[in-house]
């Protein structure tokens, strides 16, 4: 039964966010939100391949009605990750969720924007070694070779905001993955907008789920206020508004172009409290609080307060869910466990008997 790997308790939150919704995921050191992001990926993408593959088969019959009412367009996911690379997400999606992200990419269901590998490191100059290909990976993962579609490709009938801003990053267009090569917000915003317009063309409109994995890194590295010319900011950012506001404005702008948005931020105590008085901390606290106020749903992941347990990874605190399920807007806490096989189980506090229900 590989129908849905999402634990039933969490499914109402992670599956198909409504239009315009902003979901905020917060994590702490030791309790990450990667598995939650994978759930959003799965919730948006996993059902459709089954429907497509088995559409002609007997399986398709029961789902035709679902497909009918969502005729407007299928869901596509645009994942922008500043902390993890595509290989990680591919492995996660494949192992735990049975997703084949590499196959979904050419079908314009999934686009990954890499904010990790070349954000601060200029790509290696083509080396003089004759045997070294531009792909530095000797690992025989087939994903790289099969991914050929770039969002940059022929801009289809869209008045894309400003392709000129994509001027400097000529190297990434040669590779398969879109990479953010400059920490300037203009570059990032235009890249993401470009990817959005490439995903959802007028010919085939899609509902795009935008997932931003740790955009707070831009704040922490001082990138959001740094000049695009990588002029290092000698003076640390003192004014909260000048540092946080551009980033918040960028997220706001991006939200207007997509169906729903999922943002993950770090919420460790030193960062969330902002008590240290350092600009890094106050800025982060300001961003976090601001996003939490705007968000329609907040899923906070943290470690168990009572120490370690063999069968519990941590706690998800669900707040701000307005009237979705039976309890409207109530704060709810759910324990979760990520197994060695990557399968997530979620259960109520004290309801350890229902551990197996997630599989």
């Amino acid at each position: 039964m590989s129908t849905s790997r999402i634990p039933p308790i969490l499914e109402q939150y992670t599956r198909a966010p409504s239009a315009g919704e902003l979901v905020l995921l917060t994590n702490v050191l030791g309790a990450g939100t990667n598995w939650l992001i994978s759930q959003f990926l799965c919730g948006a993408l996993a059902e459709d391949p089954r429907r497509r593959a088995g559409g002609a088969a007997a399986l398709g019959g029961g789902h035709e009605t679902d497909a009918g009412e969502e005729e407007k367009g299928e869901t596509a996911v645009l994942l922008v990750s500043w902390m993890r690379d595509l290989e990680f997400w591919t492995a996660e999606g494949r192992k735990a969720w049975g997703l084949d992200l590499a196959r979904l990419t050419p079908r314009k269901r999934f686009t990954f924007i890499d904010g990790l590998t070349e954000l601060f490191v200029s790509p290696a100059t083509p080396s003089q070694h004759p045997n070294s290909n531009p792909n530095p990976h000797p690992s025989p993962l087939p994903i790289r070779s099969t991914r050929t579609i770039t969002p940059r490709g022929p801009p289809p009938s869209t008045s894309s905001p400003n392709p000129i801003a994509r001027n400097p990053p000529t190297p990434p267009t040669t590779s398969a993955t879109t990479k953010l090569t400059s920490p300037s917000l203009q570059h990032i915003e235009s890249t993401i907008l470009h990817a959005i317009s490439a995903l959802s063309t007028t010919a085939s409109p899609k509902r795009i789920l935008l997932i931003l994995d740790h955009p707070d890194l831009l704040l922490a590295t001082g990138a959001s206020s740094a000049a695009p010319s990588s002029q290092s900011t000698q003076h640390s950012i003192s004014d909260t508004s000048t540092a946080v506001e551009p980033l918040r404005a960028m997220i706001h702008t991006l939200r207007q172009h997509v169906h729903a948005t999922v943002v993950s931020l770090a919420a460790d105590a030193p960062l969330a409290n902002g008590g240290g008085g350092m600009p890094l901390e106050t800025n982060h606290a300001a961003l976090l609080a601001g996003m939490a106020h705007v968000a329609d749903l907040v899923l906070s992941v943290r470690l168990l307060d009572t120490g370690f347990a063999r069968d519990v990874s941590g706690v998800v605190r669900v707040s701000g869910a307005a009237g979705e399920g039976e309890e409207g807007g109530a704060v709810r806490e759910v324990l979760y466990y990520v197994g060695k096989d990557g399968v997530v189980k979620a259960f109520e506090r004290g309801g350890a008997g229902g551990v197996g229900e997630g599989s």
Partner: protein
Amino acid sequence: MAFRKRNVGLSRPDSTSQSSAALEPTLGLRPSPIDGRPTTSTGTPSLDGILAGHAGLALGSSLLLEESGTTDYAGMLLRLYAAEGVVQGHKVHVVGVGEHWGRELPGVVTGRESTDKGKRVGEDKMKIAWRYERLGEFGAGREGSRDRTPAASEAAANNQPSTEPPTFCHTFDLAKRLTLPVGSSMHFIPVPSTTSSPFVSILQSINDQLSSAPEATIHRFVVPSLLSPALYPQTASQPSHILQFLHGLRGLLRTYSTRLTAVLTLPLELYPRTSGLVRWMELLSDGVLELTPFPHLADTLSASGAATAQEERPQGMLKIHRLPVFHEKGGGGGGGGGLGDDLAFTASRRKFVIAKFSLPPVEGDQEGQSGALGAEGGKATKVDIEF
């Protein structure tokens, strides 16, 4: 006796492993028993053992060792990591310190050199421990493999000489000096004293090295005492500098995810964990371990090299905040070996052991307890385990 002689033949001298490094590209690597990803040794068997069951540091991941106080146990782990890399023929990149650091790496213990009988017994014990470590990791899975079962170690000792796999983790002796090979595989990257970010050129240097090196070379990136004022200019600790560096390093680790590992040490005395900067540094690292040494008596420190009855006394606590791969996937509760346990480390001349910490049996009052651990050590112990 026969057993010992075979053992002597087993542990190869330095030069052999160096020459074979060129022929055998995967020397010092082995697949993780969990998911088969290549791992390499940190040079410390018990540190390999607590890395979430992977029995080694997964390639493409980094480890941040934090240490409070003025001791340098993290530096010892770092030297062992670098020395293991040199012995295995990996390319070792060291940031910030000069070549004297490389000359002070601990030397490999070979069977021939240990003439002292007592030492040799200790070494045999160590070897059984590793071998069982390896078997135990494959077999036992989630339980830590530090517990030594006589039957299993016996079996390991019997099996080992026949198969003879290349050594994954060597034994080092702090009292010896590693003889660096002629074409030294250590590469020292100085910290430039520019007013702008000193890390830009460091990242560029390591990037150039990696992109120009042959694909089969395994690289180790060693950063001793990150942000220490003795090595780095004052501006280095600005978030925009250090965090950009760590993010870039993380990107490099992912780009070269089958060739590069990194270990960094951070003095917590200057950069406390309660600051947002350090938290971001931890978030950008794959593994975070915190060493909290006990304030020890002077005689204990001086006797620690003797490796006698004193060696059971731990020198500090070790806390795991994050483990490579394991926490990226979501953490599996306390499933990783040692995660959630109170861990203590014991450093001696020949080994650095991380083991589960336990107080001696409490005989009612606290005087007896502190007496068993030594006057001040006991007190510090009680304070330290109550986090």
